């Protein structure tokens, strides 16, 4: 039997070192881009590296990050969810309506909002599995329907003024400088990462995205997995909707328009492939941070508004390119 290079024994430490980039996987390039970005901004802006600003960045990305966790799972199975922005707004409106207009206790309103999001996600899943719709079509339909419903809840009006404790979810520091929303983001990321790594259901998602037929032939219940993932994506959009309501102290039916592209961008920048089978939550988190840090930095640096859009586009392209080109060379 021919000896293959990988079987050649190597020194343990060296081996571990050589594996390091592999561990970060496809997120290696974006990680470097993120670090470059952070270092550059620390030099360019005196306030960038302050605790206050960094927690502000966390504030700004918590919704994006939470929704991106769901989107990562969706993308790992080779799907896509365009409806997250609309579902977020719908959940926010349900929460606001039930509290402010129907007088339900805030806690119940939150539960109902989360239920609404999960339900919307489940419907996406059903359209895709039983209805055999392409995910793009199913979630595009939901994008339209959920937005319409969000507007219908109050006939387009915004709802303002929520209880103090509720707003405290995003403002009050719970542990160190971290608010409940920060912890929620962290918790979601960790739980998602653990699921993808350690649970059979999570591992199976890669198989489904990598080759659905193989997964099916290997006895994986694809329908159940799909339903689970889309429901979760809807639920997490609702979580972000509730947090946004707390953050803005108001529920708006036109919140988060175009949000789906931000979310998918974060996931793809983090190394996931839209054709499925590849993606990690570490990568997604890096993608989320790149977007957050970039926007924050451009504001701090006084880059003019129109130029910001140009710069954001260029940085995204360069960040991902450094990764893909690097990988080819290797």
């Amino acid at each position, binding site marked *: 039997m021919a000896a293959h290079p990988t079987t050649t024994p190597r020194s343990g430490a060296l081996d571990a070192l050589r594996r390091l980039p592999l561990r970060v996987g496809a997120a290696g390039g974006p990680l470097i881009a993120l670090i470059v970005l952070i270092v550059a901004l620390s030099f360019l*802006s005196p306030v960038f590296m302050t605790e206050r*600003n960094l927690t502000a960045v966390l*504030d700004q990305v918590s919704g994006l990050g939470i929704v991106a966790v769901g989107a990562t799972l969706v993308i790992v199975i080779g799907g896509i969810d365009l409806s997250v922005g609309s579902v977020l707004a719908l959940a926010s409106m349900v929460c606001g309506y039930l509290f402010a207009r129907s007088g339900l206790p805030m806690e119940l309103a939150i539960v109902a909002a989360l239920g609404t999001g999960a339900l919307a996600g489940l419907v996406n899943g059903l359209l895709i599995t039983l209805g055999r719709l392409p995910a793009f079509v199913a979630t595009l339909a939901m994008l339209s329907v959920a937005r319409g419903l969000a507007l219908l809840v109050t006939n*387009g*009006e*915004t709802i303002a003024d929520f209880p103090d404790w509720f707003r405290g979810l995003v403002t009050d520091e719970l542990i160190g400088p971290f608010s409940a929303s920060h912890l929620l983001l962290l918790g979601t990321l960790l739980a998602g990462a653990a699921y993808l790594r350690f649970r059979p259901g999570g591992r199976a998602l890669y198989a489904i995205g990598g080759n659905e037929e193989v997964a099916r032939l290997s006895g994986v219940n694809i329908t159940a997995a799909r339903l689970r993932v889309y429901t979760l994506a809807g639920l997490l959009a609702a979580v972000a909707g509730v947090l946004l309501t707390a953050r803005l102290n*108001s529920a708006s039916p*036109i*919140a988060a328009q175009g949000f789906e592209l931000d979310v998918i961008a974060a996931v793809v920048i983090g190394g996931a492939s839209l054709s499925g089978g590849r993606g990690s939550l570490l990568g997604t988190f890096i993608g989320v941070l790149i977007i957050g840090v970039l926007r924050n930095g451009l*504001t701090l640096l006084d880059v003019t508004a129109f130029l910001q859009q140009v710069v954001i586009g260029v940085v995204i392209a360069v960040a991902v390119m450094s990764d893909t080109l690097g990988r080819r060379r290797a």
Partner: protein
Amino acid sequence: GCGSSGDDGASGGGDRSIGVAVADLGAPFFNAIRLGAEAVGRERGYDVSVEDAQGDAQRQVDQVQGFITKQVGAIVYVPAGAAAASVPVEAANDADIPVIAVDRKPDGGEVLTFIASDSVAAARTLGEWYARATDGRGDLAVLQGQVGTTPEIDRKRGFDAGIAGTDIRVVAQQAANWNQEQGHRAAQTILQAHPNLRGFFGRSDAMALGAAEAASQAGVRDRLVIVGFDGLPAGLQGVKNGDLDATMVQQAYRMGRLAAENAIAAIEGRADGIPAEQLQEAFLATSENVDRYIAEQPYGPQKP
């Protein structure tokens, strides 16, 4: 103090800077506010940094947070989203940074002053003019801006009051989100459904211009009375050409200038005399007086 005066803000390097957070710079109205603020900044040697929320309230909160981090001397806040979020104002209050709100009034926190057109009164004037121009009769179609926003609500209220008691019937209402293309598309279809239509009220000039274009393309422009709102350069030109019959001229550029001047006054500790609300008059422009408004350039100096 809750940041409504600038006396303790005179120290610190960031103090010769103003942050201008605008709802959506692609909309000419908002862009004119920015141009006004920037002009004042240049004249007075202040840094004016502008952020564009592209209509997203959440992003705007992030941007105001950035201003606070940078410790700008004052913030000019033109709110995005359906309703003006109070959160950025409260955050600025906490940081003792004075806030000048423009166009849409935050429902919480303390602002130094609120600058806007008196939309209800202006829309009422417009409604009354429309009623006269149509002899108080006929079918009217309305092109709505982004539903739920203050200007949309106020313009509806004012205009409805203006045509109250007449025989004008609103036969179609379609949302066109302040957008010219959507206004064009909706008007084109409405014209099919209502061949006897007498007029359009576009709740912004962009939408009204879209309707006018659709009407002239359908060859029915002459039969219609089309009114807009804003007094954009294109809108005024439209009135002059006969594309529009009337519009309400908002003093967008002036509002931007005023906001920046107030901001500077606050930074320099001279905020005391500034009233809490500064409603700007909006003027009715028709073919008779439009040249005057074109000359006045309410949206700032126009390029040739």
